[in-house]
């Protein structure tokens, strides 16, 4: 009886020590899930999800407070990735979120710009250079296309330009071809006409 108690106590002490050690050794700061979700988000920092940036949205998703279908720049593919990561069902965009747009960059009409610095303060990634009463301009390579600079501009000199397809960013298209003879004949006839 006593020996059994001793053995159980010894096991409890050893396992307790192991657990205590592991708790210190493998301690993680913050929620690792937030970082994983944040890595999937497109980092435009646009706030279209109604959270002030990608990280806060990731935190809200991790806490179960936000839906996964609130990020228009991520597109449906982004939702799918979040669904895979979190092990939940895919959810199409709701009616309250903006529709996904083609990727674009902001462009400042430099002749109209009055140098008010309001867009510089609005830019979440510091992609606008300029100073008070000096012309501003966008660093196109750093611009995430969040559109946050468009609204504050008092002279409406900022426009969003869709990124054009060039040889440097051209992609092979998904192969489209006819699957059966009837269709092939139809396309051939169409081409002949």
């Amino acid at each position, binding site marked *: 009886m006593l020996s059994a108690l001793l053995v159980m106590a010894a096991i409890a002490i050893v396992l307790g020590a192991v657990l205590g050690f592991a708790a210190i050794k493998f301690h993680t700061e913050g929620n690792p899930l937030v970082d994983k979700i944040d890595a999937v988000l497109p980092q435009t920092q646009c706030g279209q999800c109604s959270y002030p940036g990608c990280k806060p949205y990731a935190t809200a998703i991790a806490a179960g407070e936000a839906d996964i279908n609130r990020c228009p720049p991520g597109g449906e593919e982004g939702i799918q990735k979040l669904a895979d990561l979190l092990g939940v069902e895919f959810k199409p965009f709701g009616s309250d979120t903006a529709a996904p747009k083609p990727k674009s960059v902001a462009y400042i009409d430099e002749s109209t710009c009055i140098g008010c610095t309001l867009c510089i303060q609005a830019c979440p990634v510091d992609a606008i250079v300029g100073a008070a009463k000096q012309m501003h301009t966008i660093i196109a390579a750093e611009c995430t296309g969040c559109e946050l600079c468009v609204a504050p501009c008092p002279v409406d000199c900022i426009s969003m330009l869709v990124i054009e*397809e060039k040889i440097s960013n051209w992609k092979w298209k*998904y192969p489209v071809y006819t699957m059966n003879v009837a269709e092939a004949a139809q396309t051939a006839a169409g081409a002949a006409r």
Partner: protein
Amino acid sequence: MRKLYHFHGGIHPPSNKTQSTRAAIAHAPLPTKLIVPLHQHAGEAAKPIVQAGDHVLKGQLIGMPDGFVSSAVHAPTSGTITAIDMQLIAHPSGLPNLCATLIPDGKEEWVGLKPVDYRSHSTAELQQLLRMAGVVGLGGAAFPSDIKLRIGKQKITTLILNGAECEPYITCDDMLMRERAAEIVQGAEMLRFMLDATEVLIGVEDNKPEAIAALQQAITANGRVLQQSKRHEVVAIPTIYPGGGAKQLIRVITGLEVPSGKLPTDIGVQCFNVATACTVYRALAHGEPLLSRVITITGNVRQAQNYEVLIGTPLAELVALSGALPDTDRYIMGGPMMGMPLPSVLVPAVKATNCIIAASAKLFPPPPPAMPCIRCTRCVDVCPADLQPQDLYWFAQSREFGRAQVFSLFDCIECGACSYVCPSHIPLVQYYRFAKSEIRAREHDKQLADQARVRHEYHEQRLEREKREKADKLAAREKAAQAAKLASTRPLTTQQQTEQTEQTELEASRAHIREVAQSEVEHPEG
């Protein structure tokens, strides 16, 4: 006789090479207009250093290499630059790219050439010379040759010259080896010197006996001069497509396999095309930059032949030389297996152009309609990269790019052997190209997102710091004001005192207003 090895798979398409090997390489006449693209090589485009209206000499630099992987572009003949603008080029997208248009003056005036003795220069100097001479791989990928010579710590034992030319119809390397074997062998010796390799093996498919004989003769003839004859050897390899793929050729000649995701240099081998060796020779021994190359004009033409063509020559003028037959409906750049249809026959010849095939419905009948994959695995039997093409097709089709990568999608050399044997006529390679470019685009987006995340974090930190600094300043000012008030209570008159109190209060309220205004700007509407 050297022991040869095999690579997995391969096919035997009809070679169709004899049509264009009957006549010797002819010099194409000077065209009326040259369109020289500034991005003819893998990597970054060259930066134009001439303007419209400038007169240039033959061999003058017009595009400066810009970036680590980049190469120079030169004026192929003397004349006047009339425009530097976007022009249609030979690219599967059919999109235009930056080109310099040159109207030749017909004088062929050379810029001053500086031949060098390669043995008296360091490897780094020679690499720089090749970069500025615009020497790129002429096998098709147009990868800058100087980068392939920068090998770091690895020891290169074997330099392989690729003269396999396995793709049907193309004979430009074959004719070059027959006619300019001596230049190729000397270029090979220069490359061997730069790589400090111990042996040079020139791999040529055994369907080119004339080329093999010419190379052997050149090696014997040069042997006494170079004292390297024992290091050079021509290896006749069996004719099988794609035996000219770099990894396949290395496998056949040395028996070594380049591991997935590694480079040939990692196993002590480096591979160059025979035409590249010839260009290296001309660049160093004569100081001539890469201005022209040999191009096969074949297919549905009256007289198939090889031409020495200035870079930038509109392909329409070349095709006219061979006389395309009236039922020609499109043109293919490269071979029938890996080539691409040209968006227009007006596009210029570039460094990567090895062959132009005039195609007609009779010569290349349109493929029968594609049927569903029946998992017969014939593609697996022929894949020279030892992949599972039917699985890759499945993943690419369903956009499961992650799994395609796990199945080594990027080891695919896009040789087209799988599509060739597919009984369902599925355009498999198109799927692999689609998947590869989607994966590359996603990786690029991911990189941009990471960059944006870092910048946003800095931005947040900066705002935080500014707020803290402002608060500190305010606190310090208040403290100073209080101290001043305390110190001034006794000596000051009542009047002065009131003034000072008013001043402090005013300061404090101003600071408060500024604070409120600032936070309004930072967080509009709360």
